[in-house]
């Protein structure tokens, strides 16, 4: 039950886009059609689902104060937390590279459909945000961290496909010329934020 709660919280209440404004750049840039938004959203779920557990292991076995105890008694007082930002970024980009190579090798069809989006994910702040939130919230097991990661990913996915569908719908709207393109997208995002506020404050 706890795992489900963490997942639901990640999707709706602590939505990456509407609660924390993370991953806005690709959210705004790649949301012109539902098909591409769908591809990018799935890739984000996938990468979040891999990098957050890996970072969780790293955090708890290497970076945390006293985490290096398994090396010997001399390392009990070592605190490598200063390195966590760099380490997380390194893990994210390495994982994205690895995932890219694996997908290219074993599933060329998926690789070609994701195209440029896979390498783009390395610089998506939602991914790094996921790792940092995992560190801040101190999930007790790796399964909880994974559940949080998948929830955040699904939330991001939902946000980007929803705005892509809206942008497809308003393609023929008579939007005032200065607002066309990004301007109206920002306004839509704000209005969607109001709609997503229905979940703020829910306690599960």
């Amino acid at each position, binding site marked *: 039950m706890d795992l489900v709660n963490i997942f639901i919280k990640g999707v709706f209440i602590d939505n990456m886009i509407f609660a924390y404004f993370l991953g806005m750049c690709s959210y705004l840039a790649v949301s012109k059609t539902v098909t591409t938004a769908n591809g990018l959203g799935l890739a984000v779920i996938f990468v979040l689902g891999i990098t957050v557990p890996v970072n969780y292991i790293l955090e708890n076995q290497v970076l945390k104060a006293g985490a290096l105890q398994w090396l010997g008694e001399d390392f009990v007082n070592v605190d490598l937390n200063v390195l966590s930002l760099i380490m997380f970024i390194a893990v994210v980009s390495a994982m994205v590279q690895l995932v890219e190579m694996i997908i290219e090798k074993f599933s060329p069809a998926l690789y070609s459909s994701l195209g440029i989006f896979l390498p783009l994910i390395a610089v998506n702040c939602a991914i790094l945000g996921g790792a940092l939130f995992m560190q801040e919230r101190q999930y007790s097991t790796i399964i909880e961290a994974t559940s949080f990661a998948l929830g955040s990913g699904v939330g991001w996915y939902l946000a980007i496909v929803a705005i892509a569908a809206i942008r497809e719908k308003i393609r023929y709207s008579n939007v005032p010329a200065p607002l066309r393109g990004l301007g109206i997208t920002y306004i839509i995002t704000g*209005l969607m934020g109001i*709609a997503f506020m229905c979940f703020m404050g829910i306690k599960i």
Partner: protein
Amino acid sequence: MKIMQNILNSIKPHFEEGGKLHTLYPAYDAFETFLFVPNHTTQSGTHIKDSVDLKRTMVIVIIALLPCLFFGMWNTGYQYHSQLTSDMEGYQSIYSIFDHFLFGFWKVLPLIIVSYVVGLSVEFAFAVQRKHQVNEGYLVTGMLIPLTMPVDVPLWMLALSVIFAVVIGKEVFGGTGMNILNPALTARAFIFFAYPTKMSGDKVWVHGADKIDAITGETALGQLATLTNVDPSNSEIINNYSLFSSDGIYSLYNSFIGTIPGSIGETSVIAILIGAFILVFTGVGSFRIMVSMFFGGLSMAYIFNIVGLENNLFMSLPAIHQLFIGSFLFGMVFMATDPVSAAQTNTGKIIYGFLCGVLSILIRVFNPAYPEGVMVAILFMNVMAPLIDHYVVEANIKKRLKRIKINE
């Protein structure tokens, strides 16, 4: 009428091409087409000949809203008078049904006037500036906004929310028919999040409640929200919950008739049902959305009844009673069926309505911050509606492709 037409015709040259006031032509055009059937004829293409245009559609919705409006006016007076004189026998001899109505009429009328004047001024300004016709869409929005407000809402707040809804909710997308969120709900959400003290609590729903101590106007939902997470054996809690039994003020009968505190238009189930009948009969409102939203809410409330946590009396309220209180039915009939912001496909409408109902009850029960979940639930589904449509259309394409393959 003849005189009006003559006046309009005599000043018409000023507004036409080359006239001094040509920039104001959209404003003139709006008045003319509103008062008279225009003599424009289409110049190209084949068109369906039908007397129901956008204006007639909107007027039908206004007619459907009138029962709610009149009942809301009466209820405003009734709540005030009955709370002021706690002796039930006494107030019935002092105030007649017309006194209630007149009292409410003078309280509600300013809200409607402000809503229309402000909203239509913004519409006219945009129409003149952007050189398009004034659309009639605001006629309905302007009536819906006051009906979703508590009676004591300050007029400047109302004006501000109307401006927000018309400009950000509608005009930036290009006007009527192009918005993504329901403008009336956008206005309500804006004022709800911007000035929460005037939109929630137990001191806003009956006129004068913030000044006179004798009056408390807690809505049924506000009362219910205090019954989550409590000790069910506590005598005060039992007392509060008994307000919902058959002789309490929030009884099923009272909430069906509508003699409970709440927003102006939302309280009476009867008035809303009359409106729903008009909308469905004329084909203006989608019965698919209404029916599926009703069953969505009903099934969610039943699930809560079955789960029924010990310390959460909100969940154990009978499902049908759950739907009759608050603005669930009002939102279902007048807000969710908005043809612009709802899903467009028939299958999509059913999914959209069902999820609206489920989410409304879910937010109501689980989110202590918003005892009224319908507003935000419908806004959320407005956001999701294009996505639902997209996948419904995709599924249909796939189905057809498969059919072609089989035939080959």
